[in-house]
């Protein structure tokens, strides 16, 4: 539904050139909820804006639906107002001089084929009821709450029934509680309409809970693409592991390959899952998520690693207890149930299941 090939975007500024997007390939299928996730400045917005036609890439091709909307080679660049898209902006961009009805009616009034007044009225009403804003038609746009503005922006993006919906951090201006509620509502809505969605966020929780596919970006490139579970369970490199959730990293060298490999680290030898193509002797980092580490005194089973360490710090986080355990020279962070009886200075044995330890190329 959306295909991006070898996309490059450069900005010319006074202080030289910024290469914001460096060769991105993406394929979003019909009806998919596809998320671009990455830290600030990695080029997510730029990619999204290129799909919308608001930014003009230097190289590459973009296909939306069946239309080739941009191609450097074929010198094609369809302006945004001719692309079959709906878009929600980070600031919502609600026009303050129009009321709710006029904001939503705007895309219909600008359509090539004239839409009759009665049609406009019924389609606006339908769009507003989708986002539960019925009855607010005559409200001037500035008199809406943040959440209502966000829903109004969504109604405006959907009213034309575009084939593709583009969303740029649509939840970042909402307060924490509302954001959580809206996450599920939003996903449910676009799934119900079966609309293809390209979503941009820097919030990993949003990306993991809402998407069918997540593409993690860094410095203008896609570093990993996969389902939320794949991304979370098996990050392909240290950047992804670090960005998605909290992780422990243990540097080491591969000793033995196989279904479960063995990695020699300063804290001891660890059995772990090796990334594809890693050979013996290679330098790697072993990634372990804090919640995968258990405290256990019992004997080690076949597929477990046991490390001994001393608890250096205990922090109460509300729903968890976070501990920092010194293993050799390394601090390992673990998450425990809040009622766990641990204390600073205690010597503990850490149990690391081998299938949760991922060795990545360093």
């Amino acid at each position, binding site marked *: 539904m959306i295909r991006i090939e070898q996309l490059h975007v450069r900005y010319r500024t006074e202080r030289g050139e910024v290469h914001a997007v460096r060769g991105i390939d993406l394929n979003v299928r019909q009806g998919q909820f596809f998320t671009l996730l990455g830290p600030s400045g990695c080029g997510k917005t730029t990619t999204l804006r290129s799909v*919308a*036609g*608001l930014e003009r890439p230097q190289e590459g091709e973009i296909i939306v639906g069946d239309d080739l909307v941009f191609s450097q080679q074929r010198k094609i660049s369809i*302006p*945004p*107002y*001719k*692309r079959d*898209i*709906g*878009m929600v*902006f*980070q*600031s*919502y*961009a609600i*026009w*303050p*001089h129009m009321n709710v009805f006029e904001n939503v009616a*705007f*895309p219909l009034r*600008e*359509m*090539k084929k004239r839409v009759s007044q009665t049609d406009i009225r019924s389609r606006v009403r339908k769009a507003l009821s989708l986002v539960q804003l019925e009855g607010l038609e005559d409200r001037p746009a500035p008199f809406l709450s943040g959440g209502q503005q966000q829903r109004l*922006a969504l109604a*405006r*993006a959907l009213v*034309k029934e575009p084939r593709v919906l*583009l969303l740029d951090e649509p939840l970042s201006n909402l307060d924490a509680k509302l954001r959580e509620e809206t996450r599920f509502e939003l996903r449910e809505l676009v799934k119900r309409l079966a609309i293809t969605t390209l979503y941009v966020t820097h919030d990993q929780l949003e990306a993991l809970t809402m998407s069918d596919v997540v593409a993690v970006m860094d410095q203008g490139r896609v570093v990993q693409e996969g389902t939320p579970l794949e991304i979370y369970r098996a990050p392909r490199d240290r950047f992804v592991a670090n960005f998605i959730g909290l992780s422990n990293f243990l540097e080491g060298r591969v000793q033995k390959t196989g279904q479960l490999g063995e990695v020699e680290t300063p804290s001891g030898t660890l059995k772990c899952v090796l990334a594809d193509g890693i050979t013996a002797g290679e330098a790697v980092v072993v990634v372990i998520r804090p919640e995968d580490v258990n405290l256990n005194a019992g004997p080690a089973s076949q597929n477990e690693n046991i490390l001994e360490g001393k608890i250096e710090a205990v922090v109460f986080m509300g729903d968890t207890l976070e501990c920092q355990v010194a293993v050799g020279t390394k601090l390992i962070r673990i998450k425990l149930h809040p009622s766990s009886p641990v204390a600073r200075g205690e010597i503990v044995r850490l149990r690391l299941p081998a299938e949760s330890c991922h060795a990545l190329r360093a």
Partner: protein
Amino acid sequence: MGENLRLHLGQHAIFFLVFFLVLAPLSFLILGSFSTARLPGDFSLDAMGLVNYLKVYSDPGTYELFTNTVIYVGGSASFGIIMAVSLAWLVERTNMPGKTLVYAGVPMTLAVPGMLQAMAWVLLLSPRIGFINQLLKDLFGPDAPVIDVYSLGGMVFIEGLRLVPTAFLMLVPLMRSMDPALEEAAAVSGARPVATLRKVTLRLLAPALVAVMIYQAMTALEVFEIPGILGLPAGIYVFSTKIYAIVRTATFMPVYGQANALAMVYLFIAVATTFLYTRMISRAERYAIITGKGYRPRLLDLGKWKIPALACALLFLFFAIVLPFLVFLYASFLPYLQAPSWNVLKVLTLKNYRLLAEYGEVGSALKNTVLMVATTATSTVVLSFLVSLVVIRSKFWGRKLLDQLAFMPHAIPGIVIGIAFFWLFLQLDFLPLYGTIWAISIGFTISFLAYGTRSMNAALLQIHKELEEAAYVSGAPPWRTMWRIFVPLMMPTLVGVWIWVVLHAVRIAGMPLMLYEGPDNQVLAILIWNMWDEGYIPAVAAIGTLLMIVLLLLTLAVRFLGFRRQTMQIGGT
């Protein structure tokens, strides 16, 4: 793609229109200064030389001209600033009573056009007919000393009065935002109040004060009406009036090339001052005296000086607005000019107003003025809006240059724009523009373009970029976006600029005088000027009274409509 091409063509059209409107007249101004032909019509590239420059700069009169200009500009700017600083300080930092009156009254003085202000003072202080001088003679006999307004002193005094409101409006926010903690820190360090004022307050204000001063000097340098009314009859010339005199004197054969040669230096000084001003402003902004905290500075207790201070403030208002208005009102009911006395009451008449209604030239001038002012305001608003859209909102290659081109006329004195367009229109004789009100409209549009684009740029920057982009992704092409998003969002600015231009175009006489060719393009300002020249003083008084009332109402309307920012800048002549 067609839409894209149209957008491209549109941007280029705007660029080259402004490029031509700004640079073409200037090119002819420069070329003309080297032309040895007597008349612009005879201009040819074969007859070029430095004669004009040699003639102008070997004339000892030119040095007197320099001296006069320096005294006039320096004097009026200093006088105006001192008054404005005092007034702003009194209302902001002391407990003087009656502040509201001063706050409201000072900006109102902008409603008195410079030309009428000068004329009113002539009626009061002319050596022969001035009411005050006649009174002095009645009191002290025929040998009593007279106060002569036809002098450099008179010009300095009246231009100074005229500079006060703009400077006041620039200074009030400065005084208000100055952190009193800075002064208090000096006080607890042991500085006496006078030392604090000298070492802290004035030092902090200095960069901004210098900027305001340069701005006022630019205004004084550019103004034509006041040295025109007060200096020309006495043969005291400054730059603007000398150029006018060279071109428009009936007694001599005009030497156009020499006017251009003189205008070049004038232009150079004006451009240099503008450059200096821009530099000063950026420095003043860097100077962090504004802390943005919502405090109210402690007010100085004036004690027994309260009433004298208020009297001084009221005296300014009396001189700047009440007196000129009363003088005009009085003179407009006179059958012929005479000093006030009990006998006059018996002969007061409405004849002058009746005459205005019957006199054909007034009707046509009024029609011309309304047409000219409306076209000027509309074209300025439309052109500034389009230019600012390209400058702020597009990726057009020439947008920076376009912005500078639009700002350039700000530095060019009206009289020089007038003379430059005079040459241009004579050269473009296939366009029947010369001698029409459209010529005046075009000249004014160019001079107001700088103000228009500055206001629009500021307003456009306030509009979030995503509001525009949301329209594109909703399917609206650029011109529809302009119409449905930008125009309604910018409406207050568009209306504000429109009114500002009307208020200015109606009162300025300098530029139109250079393009004036007879009854066909006679506007109100020129009519007043000509009638004054020919001595129909009571009739001038009648028109002037009506004009002042209209301008006062417009100024009040602007304030009540809430176009605060624009009102602040109703400077002009």
